């Protein structure tokens, strides 16, 4: 199986804290699979997710240690993304690894401009190409039929579920290798949640998904691999079925059966 990302003894410390939030994490993220990170609040799963596109660097003073290897499309050559120093390297990284947030984050501009935003940043100026790729991305996110007549309206007018699908379409339009989802459905109703989950399952044909979720049913429904984290450690990582039906660690079992968390 091809690897997309692999962390090696990865540790992370937030500014002005003595203790590391993540301690020596080793986790493989396989290409074209959905990997879920579960665990109680404060276990570091979002911190790990946010390290993968170095979005922590928006704020100064974080400490990275170890390696996060990002593989090329063939799963052969890898680069340690923690070595990137220049703004340009980080921009390239973020175009290869997209991110979807807990709350929908439409930009204060039209639906069309939202979708083409990343493409324009990456240097595409041709208007027909921008429109074509916007249409493909919106169709991919099952949003095209709903918005095709109001592409020039503000994206703020869409419903929460539509906004989240817009954000996914916006990220997918850049054709990233990996998409990071940070509890993407926690602010959505059940119907919107179902449509997002379906979308994630379809996306793995084209890219790799790493998702943080509080919802264990969601993890078991959509993921191929699951990592259980607790207090900054990766307690257990395995095929999702094994984690949920036959966990090796007592902590994992307790969490999954709802004894704590």
């Amino acid at each position: 199986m091809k690897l997309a990302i692999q962390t090696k003894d990865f540790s992370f410390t937030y500014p002005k804290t003595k203790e590391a939030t993540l301690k020596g994490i080793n986790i493989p993220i396989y290409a074209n699979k959905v990997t879920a990170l579960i665990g109680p609040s404060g276990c570091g799963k979002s911190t790990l997710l946010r390290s993968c596109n170095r979005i922590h660097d928006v704020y100064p003073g974080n400490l990275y240690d170890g390696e996060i290897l990002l593989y090329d499309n063939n799963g052969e050559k890898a680069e340690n993304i923690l070595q990137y120093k220049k703004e340009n390297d980080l921009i390239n990284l973020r175009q290869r690894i997209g991110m979807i947030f807990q709350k929908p984050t439409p930009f204060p501009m039209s639906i069309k401009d939202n979708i083409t935003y990343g493409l324009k940043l990456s240097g595409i100026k041709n208007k027909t190409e921008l429109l074509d790729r916007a249409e493909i991305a919106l169709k991919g996110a099952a949003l095209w039929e709903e918005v095709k007549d109001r592409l020039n309206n503000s994206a703020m007018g869409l419903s929460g579920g539509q906004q989240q699908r817009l954000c996914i379409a916006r990220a997918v339009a850049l054709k990233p290798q990996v998409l990071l989802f940070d509890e993407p459905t926690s602010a959505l109703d059940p119907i919107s949640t179902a449509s997002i989950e379906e979308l994630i399952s379809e996306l793995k044909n084209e890219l790799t998904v790493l998702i943080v979720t509080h919802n264990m049913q969601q993890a078991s429904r959509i993921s191929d691999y699951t990592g259980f984290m607790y207090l900054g450690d990766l307690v257990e990582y395995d095929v999702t079925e094994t984690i949920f039906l036959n966990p090796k660690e007592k902590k994992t079992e307790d969490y999954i059966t709802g004894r704590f968390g």
Partner: protein
Amino acid sequence: MLFNRFFRGLSHTSAWLVLTILFAIIIVLFHYSKSAIGDFGFFHFITNSKWIVGNDGNGGNFGGLIPILGTFLSSLIAMVFAIPIAMGIAIFLTEIAPEFLKAPVGIAVELLAAIPSIIYGMWGLFYFGPLLQSWFGGQSNSLLTAGVVLGIMVIPFMAALSRDAMNTTPSVLVESAYSMGATRYEVIKDIVFPFAKKGIIGSVILSLGRALGETMAVAFLIGGVFRFPNSLTSATISIPVLIANNFGEAGNLQLSAMFYMALILFIISFFTITIAKFYFLRKTD
């Protein structure tokens, strides 16, 4: 119970007092400017560039064009000068400054806002005016000097309000833009600015309101002569300065004309503040 009723009465009275004072001022301005309004009308008054006191000391030919122009032009120069600098400060304080610099620079900006206007006036009169004159020629007390010093005066106010508006941009939106591969400049241009647009416009209009009504600093710096400004560096007069300089020895009709000027200034300021409020209110919905 008694205390409740007392407190209720106190807060009601205070609230109504504000409205009463507002209307009392409007009524007084109208009352005293009646004879000037009757004599000169509206359009004739605001297009007349003369301000001649009659021989008997009571009558005369009074027009508001020059002070209105002086007020608008000095405020316009102030805005042109202040907006880019204030925006630069606000962006620095929200997006660029390292954490340890944000607090001290922010406090310095707020302290600058607390300097009394007469100090700006003296500084401009003795130092900055002659400096501008040595660069651009003309007079040292001029439209340009008054405008630029006015601009410097409103910069801290404008910067502080714009910073507050920019700070309301949700951090997740900023992160989202970075996660699309945006640079810092692109995040500011495409996310922070559009998001804070209404607050920024509000801060500019409120600053404009301050510049329009500023008396002391402008009285020191604009020259105070009733003359049509032929260039940026010529001396002229503004509405508050006209009123402040001539109030003591004015005859009946001139006094009335000055109340008329005050009424016009009041209306201009009132409208700028109303527009600002409109923007601020729309922001919250």
